[in-house]
């Protein structure tokens, strides 16, 4: 399937990226090439291969339910672009 600018526009919206017209064209080309490359996988015969649900060979990795210390609040908020003494501050979340 050929990648269209419409699809790239849609994906950039989901990723909250604002692309200019030039960028949109560039991304359509570049992403298109990536997809073509991945399409090579379609050439492999997977008739008798069970679908893979997870790439890791591990299973049942658990931790015990025991509380460990959290980070001090000052450290937690240290990287926030905007904050007050207790919370992160973000542009208003519209009440809905």
């Amino acid at each position, binding site marked *: 399937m050929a990648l269209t600018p419409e699809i790239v526009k849609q994906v950039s919206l989901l990723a909250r990226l604002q692309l200019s017209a030039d960028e949109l064209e560039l991304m359509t080309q570049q992403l298109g090439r990536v997809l073509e490359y991945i399409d090579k996988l379609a050439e492999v015969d997977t008739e008798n291969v069970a679908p893979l*649900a997870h790439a890791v060979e*591990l299973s049942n990795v*658990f931790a015990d*339910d025991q*509380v460990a210390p*959290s*980070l001090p609040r000052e450290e937690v908020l240290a990287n926030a672009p*905007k904050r007050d003494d*207790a*919370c992160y501050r973000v542009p208003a979340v519209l009440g809905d």
Partner: protein
Amino acid sequence: MITQPEETTAAYQTVVGLEVHVQLLTQSKLFCRCSTKFGAPPNTQTCPVCTGMPGALPVMNREAFRLSLKTAIALDLHIPQFTKWDRKNYFYPDSPRGYQISQFDLPLSEHGFLHISDPQGAFPPKKIRILRAHLEDDAGKSLHDEAAGKADSRIDLNRAGTPLLEIVSEPDMRSAQEARAYLTELKLLLTYLGVSDCNMQEGSLRVDANVNIHMQVDGEKIATPIVEIKNLNSFRAVERAVVYEAQRQYELWRETGKKLGDAPKQTRGWDDQAQLTRAQRHKEESSDYRYFPDPDLAPVLTSAEEVEKLKAAMIQRPAELRSRLQTDYALDAHDADVIVNQGRLFVDYFIAVAEKSGSGKLAGNWIQQSVLRYLNEQEIGIGEFDISAAALAEMIDLIQSGELASSRAKDVFAEMLNAKTTAPEAMKTLGIEAVDDSTLVTLCQSLLDDNPRIVADVQGGKQQAVGALIGQAKKKNPNANPSEVRKICLRLIDAM
């Protein structure tokens, strides 16, 4: 043709499916070891994992998984051998990772059911199918800084990463009452299991309702577009929102004729103040969550043996206890329902009293009429009740043996509570003792001697005239058993 507005209640069938999120009773979060304790100062229970720092590695909480399986078994859900976690991608300020860790195509359990019924008979007992129950993590909380009048929201991430079990029903409920009954029974079951405290005020139990209506119009089956209702803060709100929304959809359909498929699924919020649902701001393309398997989390395999083991360890569920109380202790369906709905501790109390006194019926009566009333008045639970099961059983024994007249038992019960004492002690304080027959006969004879008119009335066929003597007898001897006095008086008059 379409029915008239006055007949709207019969004009359509309400169809409801419920999504319930319950917070599991773990000490630490689902993927990190931060505390889940409610009410801590903002952002004091977070770490690199639950704030979504790059490179942080989530590890599944063993207890959260165990509680999920326990719940799944209690809801007769099938537990597949393989389950995994997926990323549900969306941007929102209270979700620091930019995705929620949830389960998409391979949830830890699916296809179960819950039986509901109504003791008042508002609807016949029915089985509500449950589509699935899966484990996911919670988001943080937005605090709206209205006082400051600023355009900012404040974010507290203490709750981010708390384990939630999402239980999704099939659209099997056909009224607001059935929806409420489902929620009530589900909550009761979850508290019996001890998997959640189900505290709605603290957000430990949250409900979203999917509602539409079905109609028969000119022999054609018509359904309206499905609406998901959010912001449901109580079971009562669920009931009212369902009723409101069904009627709103009916009126909208009459106006526009829009059917299921003509419009996408809409999300509306319940406004409890105004008692109506409002369209929520349409989050553009928000339904495109682009799920994919979370590469940081290992899948979980559960063997059939493990499932069998958990099944064997399953406690008696409320539905099973209701029938057990009926068969083992001769309670009727209503009484069994009342007792079981009070919770497991209350049931244990009842069973202890019934076993020790040997009378399920008397135990049931006393516990419902006196104990439960007292608990409700005092707004306390059975755990804080001062009369032990053994002490109540002893009192019931005294009633059964005739040493304590039923007519005085209520006073004894009150005195036991008042003085925190046993039934025999309370009886001593109240001066209650069994009156032997000869004392009663002497008492009755003196009453008859004093009241020739009453004797004449009774002889003339007015048996009820003897009632006046009972009051007098009680005055002379408070321990005189009214029914005994009555019997003896009639016998003595008969023999005159």
